[in-house]
């Protein structure tokens, strides 16, 4: 039996002036199934909505079409109206007669408006009610990694009352944070001890994930620790596995020193130089020090910061002569300009050159030659220590982690495909997040803000212990599914799994929690088994049917 359809037209308080609404109302009234057509000028206001609710109740209308402004603008408001009127809020279809009809064409557009309404009516006639339900989710969070970002995340998560597990591959926490300690005065020691003592945080060291299954709110993770394997359940997973650095010397051919004696010389990384600064028992304090950056890696913000800090520290401690070779100094983040001026004031010499300097050995000291841009000739400098440029690479475990979680990586191998919708911390799988070095983001300031955004996101998802979803919005019909696995391979959000139904038959099952309602699976299913409520084939083809003549 045809459902009763109510059409509500709105002339947006006169803003839609090139539609003859009277003629439109007459035409719309003739569409099959339409029992009442109302014209109003303020549907989005309180008054207009009250009238709508009373009309829906009065005429006991079963489907609603609203022909007004763009659904992007008002759809959620009209859904609430339906709910108030006691109607399932999915049974609404909108016709955009304002932005996409009246405002973009001059002259009378009544006919187009009527046809847009007819399209909406055809679609609403087929819509089915959708049940909403709150599904329980596991409130525990797994944080992978043991460095600065990971520890801070677990601390802040525990502060908002979420239990977390910190998984660290090495035997001890806080590896690789010495550099931060000396530069930013972070007391990493106390941070690590705070983590260990916090009752909300369970620390698992020299432990690794071997298998990850399930979906947001119900991840099942198999963890291997000293021979034993345990299976744990988590609501969300945060990856903070950091990065690794490699001296740009060995990998960059043009930076390679001409003769082989270079290996014996004093060429160090920023971190090693930091330790040299820290240890007081150094036999000979280096008299002249060379720094290098911005040759092999364009966004060298992190290395610039490290160089400026190290140079200043070395100047104060040993008063040695310091020369910095660089293409240019990028001071675009907080406090860098001040540091740069301070370094120049106390005598650090900055030499700008286009091509990377040639490095050779000269009786036990490092000889650097570079063509200075301003002087226009070669500058040759022999120094005791050279702090070479470093390349930032993903941590070694990144490869197997990405296959474990079947998550894509960007062209350089860092997590989080270069997709703007995933910034700043999301991944294409709901419930899996990344922060810090593993995302190729090395700027400490940004890492701190990311940590708080991850905490906020996880809190929003899991703290209430349940997530409201529309049940079976996208469903694979077990009778029709031939388990060809195409949808499982195609789903960008990994929301589909193969499940056993009544004992023997295996079919695809789409998880309401993990599904992001894109419909790619519904389009590609060869057996047409997947139905996407609101955008089923019938509902799309019905809109095409409605397009008569022009």
């Amino acid at each position, binding site marked *: 039996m045809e459902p009763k359809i109510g059409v509500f037209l709105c002339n947006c308080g006169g803003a839609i002036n090139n539609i003859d609404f009277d003629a439109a109302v007459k035409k719309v009234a003739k569409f099959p199934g339409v029992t009442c057509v109302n014209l109003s000028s303020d549907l989005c206001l309180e008054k207009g909505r009250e009238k709508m609710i009373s009309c829906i109740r009065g005429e006991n209308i079963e489907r609603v079409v609203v022909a007004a402004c*763009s*659904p*992007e*603008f008002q759809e959620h408001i009209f859904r609430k109206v339906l709910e108030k009127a006691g109607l399932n809020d999915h049974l609404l279809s909108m016709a*955009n007669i*304002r*932005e*996409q009809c009246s*405002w*973009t*064409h*001059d002259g009378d*557009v009544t006919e*187009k408006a009527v*046809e*847009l309404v007819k*399209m909406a009516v055809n679609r609403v006639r087929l819509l089915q009610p959708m049940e909403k339900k709150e599904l329980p989710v596991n409130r525990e969070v797994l944080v992978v990694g043991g460095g600065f970002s990971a520890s801070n995340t677990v601390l802040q998560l525990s502060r908002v009352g979420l239990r977390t597990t910190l998984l660290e591959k090495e035997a001890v926490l806080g590896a690789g944070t010495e550099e931060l300690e000396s530069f930013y005065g972070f007391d990493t020691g106390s941070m690590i001890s705070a983590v260990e003592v916090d009752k909300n945080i369970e620390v698992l060291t020299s432990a690794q994930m071997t298998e990850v299954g399930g979906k947001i709110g119900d991840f099942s993770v198999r963890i291997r620790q000293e021979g034993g394997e345990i299976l744990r359940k988590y609501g969300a997973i945060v990856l903070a596995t950091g990065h690794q650095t490699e001296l740009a010397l060995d990998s960059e051919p043009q930076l390679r020193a001409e003769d082989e004696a270079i290996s014996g010389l004093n060429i160090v990384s920023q971190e090693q130089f930091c330790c040299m600064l820290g240890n007081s028992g150094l036999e000979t304090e280096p008299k002249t020090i060379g720094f290098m950056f911005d040759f092999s890696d364009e966004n060298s913000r992190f290395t610039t910061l490290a160089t400026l800090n190290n140079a200043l520290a070395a100047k104060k401690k040993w008063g040695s002569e310091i020369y910095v070779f660089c293409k240019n100094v990028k001071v675009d983040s907080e406090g860098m300009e001040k540091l740069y001026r301070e370094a120049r004031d106390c005598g650090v010499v900055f030499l700008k050159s286009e091509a990377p300097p040639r490095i050779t050995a000269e009786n036990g000291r490092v000889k650097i030659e570079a063509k200075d841009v301003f002087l226009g000739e070669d500058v040759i400098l022999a120094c005791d220590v050279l702090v070479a440029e470093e390349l930032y690479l993903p941590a070694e475990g990144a490869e197997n982690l990405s296959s474990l979680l079947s998550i*894509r990586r960007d062209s350089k191998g860092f997590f989080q*495909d*270069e*997709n*703007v*919708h995933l910034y700043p911390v999301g991944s*294409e799988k709901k419930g899996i997040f990344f922060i810090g070095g593993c995302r190729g983001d090395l700027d400490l300031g940004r890492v701190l803000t990311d940590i708080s955004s991850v905490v906020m996101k996880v809190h929003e998802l899991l703290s209430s212990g349940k997530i409201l979803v529309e049940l079976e919005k996208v469903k694979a019909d077990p009778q029709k599914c031939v388990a060809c696995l195409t949808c499982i391979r*195609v789903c*960008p*959000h990994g929301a589909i799994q193969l499940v056993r139904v009544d004992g023997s038959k295996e079919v695809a099952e789409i998880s309401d929690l993990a599904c*992001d*309602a*894109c*419909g*790619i699976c*519904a*389009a*590609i299913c060869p057996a047409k088994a997947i139905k*996407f409520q609101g*955008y089923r*084939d019938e509902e*799309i*083809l019905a*809109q*095409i*049917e409605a*397009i*008569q*003549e*022009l």
Partner: protein
Amino acid sequence: MNGCIVAFCCEHSAYPAADLAGKLRLHYPENIRVIRVPCAGRVDVIHILKALEKGAAAVLVLGCEDGACHHITGNTRAKERVKYCNMLLKEVQIDGRPVAMFNLSPNAPHKFVSAVNEITKIIKESGR
């Protein structure tokens, strides 16, 4: 529906771009009918073929820019399907050019207008 263009517009990019075109009162030919889809990846080959059967002069699939798809692979899938449709039409000696895909972002109403104008030019050229 002779001479009409059916445009499948992705909720994340093309539909808001069309709305913005309206808000800025940018004008484009009237014979276009927009069908809102959650992602360009939802548009299936059968939808495009049925639209052509109904007499549509052209079918536009409008999705996010490459690499900026809200659902990661939606726009690339849509591009593959449009190419597949062109091949299916070429197989039966029908000009496939009126079935086309354009990429745009939500803040690019001019791209929406230029897509509609370009497809109108293609319709004239292919004489449908």
